[in-house]
């Protein structure tokens, strides 16, 4: 078959272009450390990459949600512990004075009960991050007035911990303090007020004091119940957090497998392409240095 001069140049040119293009692609992969630099590099892979990235972003957001919920739950739990102690003190007062009250001690004991009442009130009106903890949805208004009446509502506050997965994180004033809607519930403020009245009463009626023991015990149970539910919530949040961590690991792994170029492999390939390109250049040069008939005539 005849071979014309232009044939030789055409073949050389197209070879050089092909090699140069592959060299460029290999260089891009080394420079960006990514196998997929534009959607056309791997269209299906690109779709997966976007999916994984979105999942990671979601997981991080769920973790954020959980972290802030955990700190609130922990805080509330600590408050429950305090409340428990305070009511324990009130129970002890009842136990000590069920049979009689020394008139000289009366003032001190009444003051003690008043102190307990004030502290319980303070706890009931605690804020966390600028919002009242025990107000239900009415988080911007003080839930308990000085007389112990409840101004909040029974709203539940949830947070998002996963796809279509929510966890309730709040306790309402009713559930902890007024006992409305709680089985065997009692109004703690009313109980403390009654205790104070009974201790102040002149003449002193011991049975008024001793009869309060039951209610105070109910109050303690009520608070314990609230504390337990917060603990359960906390543990649920923690378990979810752990699951999310493990899940995150595997997603990062899968994302990396599709998207990232193994640096060692990419560099080796780059070397190979460089060699191929140099070989193409050398061949091209040889072809044109070749002697033709003109040299011999």
């Amino acid at each position, binding site marked *: 078959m005849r071979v*014309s001069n232009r044939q030789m140049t055409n073949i050389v040119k197209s070879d050089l272009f092909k090699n140069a293009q592959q060299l460029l692609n290999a260089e891009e992969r080394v420079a960006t450390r*990514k196998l997929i630099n*534009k959607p056309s590099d791997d269209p299906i892979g690109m*779709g997966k990459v976007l999916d994984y990235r979105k999942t990671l972003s979601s997981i991080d957001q769920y973790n954020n949600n959980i972290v802030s919920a955990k700190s609130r739950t922990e805080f509330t739990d600590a408050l429950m512990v305090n409340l428990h102690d305070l009511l324990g003190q009130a129970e002890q007062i009842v136990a000590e004075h069920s049979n009689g009250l020394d008139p000289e001690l009366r003032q001190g004991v009444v003051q003690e009960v008043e102190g307990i009442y004030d502290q319980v009130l303070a706890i009931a009106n605690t804020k966390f991050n600028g919002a009242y903890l025990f107000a239900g949805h009415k988080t911007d208004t003080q839930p308990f007035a000085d007389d112990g009446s409840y101004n909040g509502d029974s709203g539940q506050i949830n947070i998002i911990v996963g796809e279509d997965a929510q966890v309730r994180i709040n306790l309402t004033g009713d559930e902890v303090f007024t006992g409305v809607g709680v089985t065997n519930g009692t109004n703690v403020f009313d109980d403390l007020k009654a205790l104070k009245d009974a201790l102040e009463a002149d003449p002193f009626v011991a049975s008024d004091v001793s009869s309060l023991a039951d209610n105070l015990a109910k109050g303690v149970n009520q608070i314990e119940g609230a504390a337990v539910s917060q603990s359960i919530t906390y543990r649920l949040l923690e378990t979810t957090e752990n699951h999310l961590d493990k899940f995150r690991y595997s997603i990062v792994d899968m994302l990396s497998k599709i998207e990232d170029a193994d640096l060692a492999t990419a560099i080796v390939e780059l070397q190979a392409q460089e060699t191929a390109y140099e070989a193409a250049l050398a061949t091209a040069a040889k072809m044109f240095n070749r002697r033709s008939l003109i040299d011999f005539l």
Partner: protein
Amino acid sequence: MSGIYGVLQTGMRSLQAQQRGIEVTGHNIANVNTPGYSRQTVNLKTTTPVMGSQGMIGTGVTARESERVYDRFVGVQIENENEELGRWDAQKTALERVETIFDESSDSGLSKTMGEFWNAWQDLVNNPSGNVERLALLGNSETLAFEFQNTYNKFLPLQADLDISIAATVDEINLKAAEIGDLNQKIIEAEGGGLHANDFRDARDMAVKDIGLMIDVTTYEESSGSLNVNLKDGSSLVNGSNTSTLSTMANDAGYRDVVWASDPTVSINNTISGGKLKGWIEVRDVIIPGYMSNLEDLANGIKGAVNTAHGNGYDLNGDVGGAFFSGTLAGNDFAVHADIVADSTKIAASGTALGAPGDNSNAIAIAELQNALMMNSDTATFDNYYNSMVSDVGTAVRHAGMSYDHHTAMVGHLENYRESISGVSLDEEMVNLIQFQLGYDAAAKLISTTDELLQTLINMV
């Protein structure tokens, strides 16, 4: 004539013939790098013998018309492949530009912005009365609307660019067609006398190949030597030395359609199925509007879902939530509703009228929209929809790239085959040069020998 004078004539004719051979060889050597050149060969034939007393006597050689070495079929094949090559070349480069609009390779892009929008709603869930969270959500929402609008708008300059390319190509086609008409005229005149218009034909072949890159045509050569060029629907572009001109007209979308200058209100876009024109028209009028419409569907989907959910909730003031997003991409006014921008307390996080500010149930409902199957007849989430759009673009670019590579290889093969038949080989021409030079020397020797014979004859007397 016979005798010594006959030999003289033979010698002279040989000189002319060999010289003609060298001329043709010289022409080939000069055109070794000319694109589209077909090598020419000199046609040496013996002259008519004469009747002599000893029988038929040969009278030497004459150089007939030089011919070009050429395979007509390969030429047609190359022109056909060029049409596909032109189309996929145009489509590939245009789609590669579209691909950069969907740049998700770095850690930015519409996918991430959408994610941050939904995450901002979750931050609001965690603290529905928080001013910081509301402002952050507002910021992320505005960014989302901006990104959507921005991405949508990036298609428009691309379409305008393709529009300009189309108009420029139409002009070029007209130029080439005029060239072919011109060459037809010259070829008809030259070949009317029975000659071969070799160089004109080469030039005409080149012009036809160039036209094939731009628009798909069929060709037919008449016996007069004129090449008629028609568009695929049969309408005539070049007929003899007459050319019909193409032009453009503005279509409903504000872009240019190809028309015949003689009938400037009828678009012939539908008859074009090859060449660069096809590639550009396809991208400008079908592919890009497809992506723009998908983007609009996505934006409207998000707007509809968020607005509806927002309207089910109550803001910090206890009022029903108003529209969250307003406007459309096509109207260049897709944005967060002005009322919300002006006052972030109007973001309706609460599910009940009296639930503010602690009730976050509506914010939860809106945040969960990202997992809802709201696109593609309720089979895909917003992210699924967008991700498959990006995948589609990648696939389209890949497909165009592979077609382009395939047709480039085909054209390469065919061109090489054409070259092996019609291309100039310097080695070959060198041999021819020597060959004709020897022939010339020999003819000269013949003449000088005959001259000596004549001298001898004259001196005899």
